[in-house]
């Protein structure tokens, strides 16, 4: 019943002009696997829909050993699971994407959509934050880069301003090993009850740098700095690992909902963080 204007720009400038013209009141559609559900359920009633799938500037996928990875917003989850580049340099992104949805959905769903939808349980956010990824946001008048860790502001909310879109993600060259573990009742086609990404960089038998990032336990993906600090400079004995896992569980205060009770989410944080660290050793 709701009719809306539909645009299919062919260039980034064209897309940004339409966004500016509409003063931000246009819904960007990429794969549509999040947006269309919300339209159907009358959660959003867009006056205009901007299909960005033809915009070539959003399709970057390149690697440079100094600058790292540039991966465009339109990269599909299927691309992430298949790209030799991703699989060689950032295998955690390929495996995280492989845990999402189903083959059919992965062929449509995009990286940009997963991040901009800003669901607390979005599976790509924790591993990307653990990799110190940076988001490139563009509007007609400006282009800015901000750490992905600062991108999310609440469930369904991000720092994206009116007229702005996510162009690509930049991931620094891989340092150490990264793991992402997802806990969900079903093997596939399920949402994370808890997601945990861990990156550990070791030198001389000691942990030099650590990242612990949790999904689905807070309004936004949660970086557990106290847990990271408890690891850095330490030899990663099982005692040290257990301690970091415990700190991680204590530092989050998840909610109880139909998917899980809060106590269970906390327990899973502890288990996943411990197993995640172990997986990087």
């Amino acid at each position, binding site marked *: 019943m709701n009719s809306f204007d539909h645009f299919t720009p062919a260039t980034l400038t064209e897309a940004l002009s339409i966004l500016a013209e509409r003063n931000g009141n246009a819904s960007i559609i990429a794969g549509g696997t999040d947006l269309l559900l919300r339209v159907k359920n009358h959660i959003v009633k867009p006056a205009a829909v901007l299909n960005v799938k033809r915009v070539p500037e959003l399709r970057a996928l390149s690697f440079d050993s100094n600058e790292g990875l540039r991966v465009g917003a339109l990269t599909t989850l299927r691309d992430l699971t298949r790209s030799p580049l991703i*699989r060689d340099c950032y295998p955690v992104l390929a495996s995280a994407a492989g845990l999402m949805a189903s083959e059919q959905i992965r062929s449509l769903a995009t990286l940009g959509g997963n991040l901009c939808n800003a669901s607390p349980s979005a599976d790509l956010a924790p591993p990307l934050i653990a990799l110190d990824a940076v988001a490139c946001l563009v509007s007609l008048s400006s282009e800015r880069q901000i750490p992905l860790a600062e991108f999310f502001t609440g469930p369904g909310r991000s720092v994206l301003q009116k007229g702005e879109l996510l162009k690509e993600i930049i991931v620094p060259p891989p340092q150490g090993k990264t793991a992402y573990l997802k806990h969900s009742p*079903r093997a*596939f086609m*399920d949402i994370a009850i808890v997601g945990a990404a861990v990156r550990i960089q070791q030198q001389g038998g000691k942990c030099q740098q650590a990242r612990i990032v949790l999904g689905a336990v807070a309004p936004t993906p949660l970086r557990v700095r106290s847990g990271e600090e408890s690891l850095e400079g330490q030899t990663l004995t099982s005692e040290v690992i257990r301690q970091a896992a415990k700190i991680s569980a204590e530092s989050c205060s998840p909610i109880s909902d*139909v998917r899980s009770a809060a106590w269970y989410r906390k327990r899973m944080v502890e288990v996943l963080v411990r197993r995640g660290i172990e997986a990087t050793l």
Partner: protein
Amino acid sequence: MTDALIGQRVPKLDAPSKAAGKTIYGHDVRLPSMLHGRILYSRYAHAKIIRMDTSRAEKLRGVKCVLTPKDNPPHRFGYGKDNKPFKDIARSLRDEIAGVVATDADIAEEALSLIEVDYELLPNIFSPREALSEGALLIHPEHKSNLFQRYNYSHGDLAQGESESAVVVEEKFLLPYVSHVCMETSVVVAQFDHRDHLTLWSTTQIPFLLQRDLSEALGIPGSNVRIIQTAVGGAFGRGLDIYPYEPIAALMSRKTGQPVRVAFSREEEFLAGPARQPAEVTVRAGAKADGTLTFRDASCMLDIGAYVSWGTVTPLVMMETTASLYQVPHARFTADCVYTNNLITGAMRGYGNPQSTFFIETLMDRLAEALKMDPVNFRIMNANVPNSETPQGLVITSCGLKECLEAVAASADSARMNVYPERSRRNEGGRLVLSEVEGMTVTANIKPSPFNLQPPHIKRGIGFASTLNVGGGARIYRSDGCGATVKVDDFGHVTLVTGSTEIGQGSETALAQIVAQTLGVKIENITVLNSDTDIKPWDVGVHASRTTFIAGNAAYLAAVDARNQIFETAAQLLGVGVDQLSASAGQVTVRDEAGKSISLEQVARRRHFKEGGKVILGEGWYDPPTQLVDKDTYKGNISAAYGFGAQMAEVEVDIETGKVRVLRLACANDVGHAINPMAVEGQIEGGAQMGLGYALTEELIVKDGKVLNPDLLDYRLFTSADMPIIETRIIETDDPGGPFGAKGVGEMGGTPTAAAIANAIYDAVGVRMTQLPMTPERVLAALDEKEKRARV
């Protein structure tokens, strides 16, 4: 009979058209000038409608009319005669209070939001206990009590059973709401013609009872109602009752004078469709030191929701498992079916049996443990046996329970030895590769890791459970019959018209095999018609795993009748006696006289084409030699045969997360004789998929009468990626009453699954799960509890 079609792996006749997307389902039906109806449900679980203003909705462009309780005919309908199309007192959040007809469904939907309703709130009752408490508000005042029905069964002497017991175990169980989740949501198209006759395109399982129900609901003669059944995209018991949306569609059509379609959204299906009754159950059971069972005592409280359905009869089946699965000398079973302001409940595959088998077989395991006996041997020594009668009055003819248990015990041995079957055992329906992620191939079968590579937090276990299920119909209506006719035309083509209903279970194919075998023709020469009450003879409906047995017998009788007519003419033409003839390969041949034969089509033509000629039209009516249970004692032989089965589940439990992975499910079923082994396997595998979901993931979470997870994300079905290796074994016992020895199998596949898994979990980690589904959270809580107890 040389060309043995019986026992062949015949692909389902309806499969190619379904695979090609050409089958006409209910959602595909479009009639000229068809309108669309949508239903407004109550905002409150218990409230009186004191004012309704429909004027804004009526003014919306495209809206044809709005219906309210004022449009109700004066009659009540439904199993408990407690329902009306539109309610002026809402008793649950799924109560229909108004409806809109419009030129498209979106307009109708928008119009719903323009209807203004003022409610006067009434106190809510969301728990059966509260509903039964002194002075509780009556949900249906005319019923005088919120207790709709109490089942009270017993045989033997419980006190004696207790006193003879060396071990006694007791447990409390909590069973959830689950939904059928048919791929096709509820849908109906209704049309009144100029004679005021109603035609309903429907996905019902009970076309002839629905005719009667609708005539009651609408106050028109049953002879004015015609039901046309479309292809059914899943039923599983959902279609066993009349639901308000059906008379509502009819009222909408009558008011507008045009055909009206009412189709549920997925969310509506979860909210307004029926669910399996949740129940609270307390069970005690005992055994002698030598392992002989002494007694069982089960009492259940079922929340049936705001309106009664045929689902309220499920305690009959729970009673049967309690009293008659294994030999139980003393037994008692009680069940209270209680009205509440919760969602409506209905019949669902297994009809009480998945519930009762879960609690009975869990206690069987506890008894075996208390006696320090092998769980399989303990079951075998108490197993039902052929040609026996249970104290409840079930007359057991063929019985392969022991063989089923032995078969799954063999699978348990390979599980213990860490041996796994070849992946694609067979190409038809063999396990598929689902996806490739990171070089790992993920198949529909879970791939178990070798024992020695298993991390210490993963524990393996195996568990067993059996099942007893009606396999020769179930008399819950005064007739359990089915009619059939078989016509042979002048091309030698055969048309079977059967009263029974195809709901995807493959009955068309099995019935075609029976008729083709009897007439000696190829399966390609058979057409099965089964979808129009104006054409087909009566049948009580598709439920209780009854179609192959009952409709199979009826089809067989009709085919024999047709064959007699064929032989009569052929004997004259060939100048031999009728008893010398046999039918095969489309020919009637004279036995012992090679070369002397006549084709079926020739016989047909010679019989038809003359003055005083006759058609070849056989008829059959089969109503099994069974009884309605006695209304006071609940005893009686409800079915002409009983099916048996056993399952073995092999599981892995992650003791840190509580997550249970089923690695293997071995299923052995006594089906009498497999008319079509491929279809039998399909029924068992499909049943297992539902049983796995019931055991581990499926639950409608209901709070204050409201479903909190009405979608396929948070209502978790088992997907192909979660499916374990399923080993199906068919045990054949050739039942004397079944067509070609067959018994029913439609429901057994999922019945023992939850119990087998619960017992396997116990074997793995030593906790007894007594609440379904056994989610990771519940398993972990049980493990915590066990640890706490160990510390004290």
